[in-house]
């Protein structure tokens, strides 16, 4: 079974600062994907970024980037030039690759509550 661990329950930074959220995972799979989702107070989960395990290059999406350390099973999210609208819960998630049963479900961590202060 896969597990995802987020060790920071809460974080708080000032607007325009850079913040890094941590995530570690455990799996015996070789083909998998990792994700960061954002959940604002509206409860609607929004995909922030996706990383394929077989790609060495770290994924980036505008102000969001990841530091993927496969050997250490670490997958952190860096938010640059943070904005007030980034305030939300952030969840790290794992999914098996391929089309086998179980490949479609996301396994989530416990989440990190991020607050951006003006």
């Amino acid at each position: 079974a896969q597990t995802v661990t987020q060790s920071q329950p809460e974080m708080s930074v000032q607007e325009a600062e850079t913040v890094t959220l941590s995530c570690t995972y455990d799996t015996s799979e070789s083909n998998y994907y990792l994700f960061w989702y954002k959940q604002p107070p509206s409860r609607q989960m929004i995909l922030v970024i996706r990383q394929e395990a077989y790609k060495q290059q770290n994924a980036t999406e505008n102000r969001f980037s990841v530091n993927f350390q496969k050997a250490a099973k670490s997958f952190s999210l860096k938010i640059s030039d943070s904005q007030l609208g980034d305030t939300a819960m952030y969840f790290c998630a794992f999914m098996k690759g391929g089309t086998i049963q179980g490949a479609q479900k996301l396994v989530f961590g416990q989440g990190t509550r991020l607050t951006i202060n003006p």
Partner: protein
Amino acid sequence: GAGVSQTPSNKVTEKGKYVELRCDPISGHTALYWYRQSLGQGPEFLIYFQGTGAADDSGLPNDRFFAVRPEGSVSTLKIQRTERGDSAVYLCASSPRAGGPTDTQYFGPGTRLTVL
């Protein structure tokens, strides 16, 4: 365009009652997922539909939980003999194709179920 919608937004019921939670996926999306999010936790997978059939129901906690998607669009999650431990936010998601890690899941706002 319209996103995933879920009704009701909030549901309060008494222990032992039956409840139905509805999910309207994005039009044309083939795959549909249900997750449960307990307070202070990340979502946990319940069931995944590919079209009308449940392709993976390994996350359903027990036989009090059942879900259907009879026409391959709207889905209903049904909980019989509700217990206080069933209190959670129930999230629905849909994706355009056959599911899998490159097929982005789009989530609805969830239904908050409270069992008194």
